[in-house]
């Protein structure tokens, strides 16, 4: 005959208070680790006026310091395209001063961003080399516009230098336009620009126009959309670029009888993807390895905790003889203190490992200067002082004009002491 003694009370089978406390605390901590990413002020919905310059300045006013350069890049080029050159200068000057001061400047944030539990995007943004190059390029155009071709040349040289540490020698300092403009500025300053021209010619298959120092209208044309960053890899630790071919492949500017063709001289998409690996990629790779390792340790420890918890109570059956001499089978529950302690300890290790894994920030920084063009081009022409009606026409890959982008512009040639700089972009902002 089999008789079961009453099972232990539910209270006796419940995990101990310590275990419950540990579990609930760990649960809370786990969810605390899943911090949502707050909207950066750059993306915060501020009252919009519809004026990109006013809105851009409003964004800048509330932006954290780490995003300031990014917003200045964006606003600077928007101002440039909208003809607010003073604002563009102010923004690029501040951005360049900030990125120039980083060698011994605000490195604390950068140092923290290399840590396991801080995301790369927490560092002060200065941009990938192609973005920094473009800041110097645009500032160079503004210097040239102000009649300072030597300072413009300085910017082009700084820009070219920024590209000089690409991983592959083939792609070091390979901006055609920067070399060409370096030489053109020298030629305009009555110096020898032939070496720079020769370097530019080596970098391109296109036939570059010889320097015309008498050309007083310098046209800088840009079209297409620049590279987009995204985080790839299992843990988002790989910085990658999405590049879409531009529908626009060339442009022309017609002023009276003169027509200048603008074929692509430089391609920013190409520049972004030919830089090679970053040192930061290794740092993020190590973070990803740590995250994966911590996650695995957490899984193993939690499984171990479950196994140990399963062994806390063990049922034992034994035959007993009562006072009347009847024998019966009795089921007893035995509590294993060691297994209980082990279960708690393993659960804690597992949960802390999981928290550490969740808190490890592996994502590559994908903040990007998102209003850059894909192609850069240049042409120069001679025009007498005064106002000149001109037509800008963009062409697709088949050489067909894209009608909705055709624009009539007025070129104003003023002070003969300095060149007139015209910046024409397919992008409006």
């Amino acid at each position, binding site marked *: 005959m089999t008789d079961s003694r009453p099972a232990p009370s539910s209270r006796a089978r419940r995990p101990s208070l310590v275990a419950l406390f540990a579990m609930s605390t760990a649960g809370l901590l786990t969810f605390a680790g899943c911090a949502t990413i707050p909207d950066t002020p750059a993306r915060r919905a501020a009252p919009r006026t519809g004026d990109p310059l006013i809105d851009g300045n409003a964004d800048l006013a509330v932006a954290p310091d780490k995003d300031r350069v990014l917003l200045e890049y964006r606003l600077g080029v928007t101002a440039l395209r909208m003809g607010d050159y003073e604002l563009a200068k102010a923004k690029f000057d501040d951005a360049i001063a900030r990125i*120039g*001061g*980083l*060698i*011994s*400047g*605000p*490195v*604390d944030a*950068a*140092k*923290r*961003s*290399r*840590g*396991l*539990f801080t995301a*790369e995007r927490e*560092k002060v943004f*200065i941009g990938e080399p192609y973005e920094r190059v473009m800041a110097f390029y645009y*500032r160079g155009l503004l*210097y040239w516009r102000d009649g*300072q071709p*030597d*300072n*413009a*040349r*300085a*910017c082009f*040289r*700084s820009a070219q*230098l*920024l590209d*000089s*540490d690409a991983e592959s020698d083939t792609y070091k300092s390979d901006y055609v336009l920067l070399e060409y403009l370096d030489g053109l500025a020298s030629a305009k*300053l009555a*110096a020898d620009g032939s070496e720079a021209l020769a370097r530019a010619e080596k970098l391109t298959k296109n036939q570059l126009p010889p320097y015309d120092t008498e050309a007083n209208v310098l046209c800088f044309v840009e079209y297409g959309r620049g590279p987009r960053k995204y985080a790839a890899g299992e843990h988002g630790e790989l910085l990658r670029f999405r590049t879409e071919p531009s529908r626009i492949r060339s442009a022309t500017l017609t002023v009276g009888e003169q027509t200048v063709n603008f074929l692509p001289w430089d391609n920013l998409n190409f520049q972004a993807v030919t830089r090679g690996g*970053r*040192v*930061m990629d290794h*740092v993020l790779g190590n973070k990803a390895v*740590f995250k994966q390792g*911590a996650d695995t*340790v957490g899984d193993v*420890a939690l499984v*171990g905790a479950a196994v*140990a918890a399963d*062994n806390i109570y063990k049922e034992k059956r034994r035959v007993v003889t009562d006072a009347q001499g009847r024998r019966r089978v009795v089921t007893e529950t035995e509590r*294993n203190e*060691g*297994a209980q*302690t*082990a279960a708690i*300890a*393993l659960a*804690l*290790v597992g949960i*802390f*490992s999981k928290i*550490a894994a969740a808190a490890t920030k592996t994502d590559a920084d994908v903040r990007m200067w998102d209003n850059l063009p894909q192609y850069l081009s240049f042409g120069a022409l001679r025009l007498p002082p005064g106002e000149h009606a001109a037509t800008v026409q963009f062409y697709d890959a088949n050489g067909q004009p894209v009608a909705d982008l055709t624009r009539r512009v007025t070129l104003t040639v003023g002070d003969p002491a300095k060149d007139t700089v015209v910046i024409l972009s397919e992008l409006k902002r």
Partner: protein
Amino acid sequence: MKTTSRFLLLASVAATPVFFTGCETTQGVRNPAGVPVTEMRPDEKGFVQGTGVESQDLVSVTDKMARSIVGIPEIARAQTKPSIVLEPVVNNTRFPINKDIFLSRIRVQLNSKAAGRVGFMDREMMKTLERERALKQSGQVTASADPNVVEFKGADYFLTGKLEGMSTRTTQGTSDYVLYTFRLTNARTSEIVWEDFAEIKKQGLEDAAYR
């Protein structure tokens, strides 16, 4: 079973610190409250520094040039005060700079330290001066001297300079060398009567987060 449990317990306790040694310790945030405005001498290195042309370079270079110019015989032993016209400095480096600032500081140094031994012609003001003279000549404004007599002084010397640079950038860092040369040219003979130079080299390495 009890032995196994104790083993598990000890192993897990031992594994915890080993596991967390993998976590990089945080040294703490420096300057959490920011850095208050610090007044610095223009010739000292600040806590924010790049490899470009900075105020300490400007001060040291222009001090050296001013001391050098004032000692040359053409200035020190001139019978009449020589007139100098400043010509813009040529910037052949990779750093955009305010080109006037070098010559302005040399001029101010010479004016304040050379005790009137040199005179500088204010050619920046020429358009304004010519307009004023035209007003005087037309009788629209009064004149203390005959406005038809040309009194604008010509240059005895031209002072100018050139900044040239060499830059290298690798994964090991950025290196910038800037050579500052200044010269004084006789306006009549084109002879360079004085020339001097200063050179500054700087190197820096950006944080790995930016490389």
